């Protein structure tokens, strides 16, 4: 009989990702309503000093797979280790964060275990003892409710959607025998991105620019940096070469759910809206009063962004003193 919830708490270089606390908090909430235990899995190298942290976010037990071969994320090694732990613990539900690595791992694990996987989940409900998972499809134009059949259910949660909640639990740490097995891929180099750039999918505030910027993102960058946020871009801006592909928000780019999304000079094609419609608050700035994005926004301003964005920056400087 499968029981318990297993959460994979993702860490990079000895620090947990924000998404790790989101999946732990959600795991705790479900464990309480299902009256079961929450076990966190931490995979990495030299992680003993952070291993207890998941206890703060509700883990009853923490399993660490600590091995030099696990220092960098590696599909084969991580899947082998995690599949070994699943075999041992036989959980009913496995929760991961849908980061780049998380999605890669979840998909391989699902195939290995022959288990159903719900990717990029944004809501989990327990209805009549059944888990109902909600996830966007068609780039967010549709929300699907899903059930998973079978002994083990796997879900990867979209970053920045679930709230973080502290709840001190025992967090008993146990080191497991990491069975690394056959490994056919290796990270040969890691190029760390410059400075303290905030990852778009994890940012609490995103300031994005499109066609209306005419390629000048200086004011948008200044506003984003002042707010501690990240810069996003429409497909048009990326296709024009104004911004790197990694900044693209939309159906064929990144999907973001910040607390605040400020769209500057983005008309709001269906494919862009797909990437940002789950943002909690949306501000649209556009000189065209008929821009479709106004209908998706909470607050709109018609005007020239070349004037408005620096003026907003000035106003924020005033309140920040």
């Amino acid at each position, binding site marked *: 009989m499968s029981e318990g919830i297993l959460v994979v708490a993702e860490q*990079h270089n000895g620090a947990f*990702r924000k998404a790790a606390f989101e999946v732990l908090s959600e795991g705790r909430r479900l464990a309480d309503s299902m009256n079961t235990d929450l076990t966190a899995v931490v995979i990495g190298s030299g992680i003993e000093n952070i291993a207890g942290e998941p206890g703060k976010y509700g883990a009853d037990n923490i399993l660490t797979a600590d091995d030099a071969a696990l220092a960098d*994320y590696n*599909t084969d090694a991580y899947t082998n280790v995690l599949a070994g732990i699943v075999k041992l613990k036989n959980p009913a539900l496995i929760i991961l964060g849908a*980061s*780049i690595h998380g*999605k*890669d791992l979840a*998909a*391989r694990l*699902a*195939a*290995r275990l022959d288990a*159903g*996987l719900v990717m990029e989940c944004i809501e989990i409900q327990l209805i009549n003892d059944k888990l109902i998972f909600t996830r966007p499809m*068609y*780039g967010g*134009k*549709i*929300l*699907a*409710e*899903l*059930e998973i*059949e*079978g002994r083990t259910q796997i879900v990867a949660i979209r970053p920045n959607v679930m709230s973080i909640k502290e709840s001190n639990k025992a967090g008993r740490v146990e080191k497991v025998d990491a069975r690394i097995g056959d490994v*056919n*891929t*290796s990270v040969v*180099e*890691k*190029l*760390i*991105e410059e400075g303290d750039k905030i*990852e778009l999918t994890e940012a609490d505030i995103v300031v994005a620019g499109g066609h209306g910027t005419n390629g000048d993102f200086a004011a948008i960058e200044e506003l984003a940096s002042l707010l501690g946020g990240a810069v996003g871009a429409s497909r048009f801006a*990326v296709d024009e070469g104004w911004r*790197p*592909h990694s900044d*693209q928000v939309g159906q*064929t*780019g990144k999907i973001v759910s910040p607390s*605040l999304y400020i769209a500057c000079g983005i008309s709001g*094609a269906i*494919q862009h809206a797909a990437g940002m419609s*789950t943002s*909690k*608050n949306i501000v649209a700035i556009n000189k065209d009063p008929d821009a479709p994005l*106004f209908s*998706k926004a*909470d*607050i*709109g*301003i*018609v*005007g020239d962004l070349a*004037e*408005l964005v620096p*003026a907003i920056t000035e106003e*924020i400087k005033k*309140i920040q003193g």
Partner: protein
Amino acid sequence: MDIVVLVKQVPDTESLIQIAGDGVSIKTDTIKWVMNPYDELAVEEALRIRDTQSGSVTILSMGPKRSVKTIQTALAMGADKAVHLNDPQAEGSDSLATAKILAAALKDIPYDLIIAGQRAVDQDNFQVGAAVAEYLSIPQISQITKEEISDGKIKCHRTVEGAIEVVEASLPALLTTQRGLNDPRYTTLPGIMKAKKKPMETKVLADIGIDPDTVGESNRKVKITALKLPPERGGVTMIDGGSVSEKAAALVSKLHDDLRII
């Protein structure tokens, strides 16, 4: 270098998606069907590798009859041949079943490299590539923006949160694409004419040894119980009137004092 590209036909990203009467599927009559944009990157990359290393590019696609048009597009871009899996009993398969079918078909196609889109922009599952790699027991490198092949190994760049990783795998391997990998070529009239003469095999589940009772709509592990439209937002509040700085101040006051998000 023999390369197989996994291709799927999907609704154009500008399409309006409407829920069908059954509440669990979408209306398909008004949709414009195109090649999955991430698969265009996959086809383009395969062609570039073939053109520098020699070898062949085979398109493998599962879907109903209308998928032929998308397969023809891939052939018109320059792929050499295609296998079309068209069996009504495969329809509605979930990601794992789809991957099982594709992996079974790949047993009859020689490959050194398989390239797939990171996801199909219909159900956005991000699963089929990894599952095919698992069923074939080959390594996968997902969401790549650059690749380099030498001495039977492939080295790929992948952008993750906060870093670019360079990942190496031995061949055969499966890659999935990320935007930035390349700019897919457009088809040309001569390309389209040539495509019509290129070999395309059509197969059903029995041809690849798949039991229809293990796949398709009725054997989904992940069942769609309902589709709904995303909740409507409360409507837009426009900040009108006043000078640029008055508008800016009104916005900042709303975000700071009312919503408390900055």
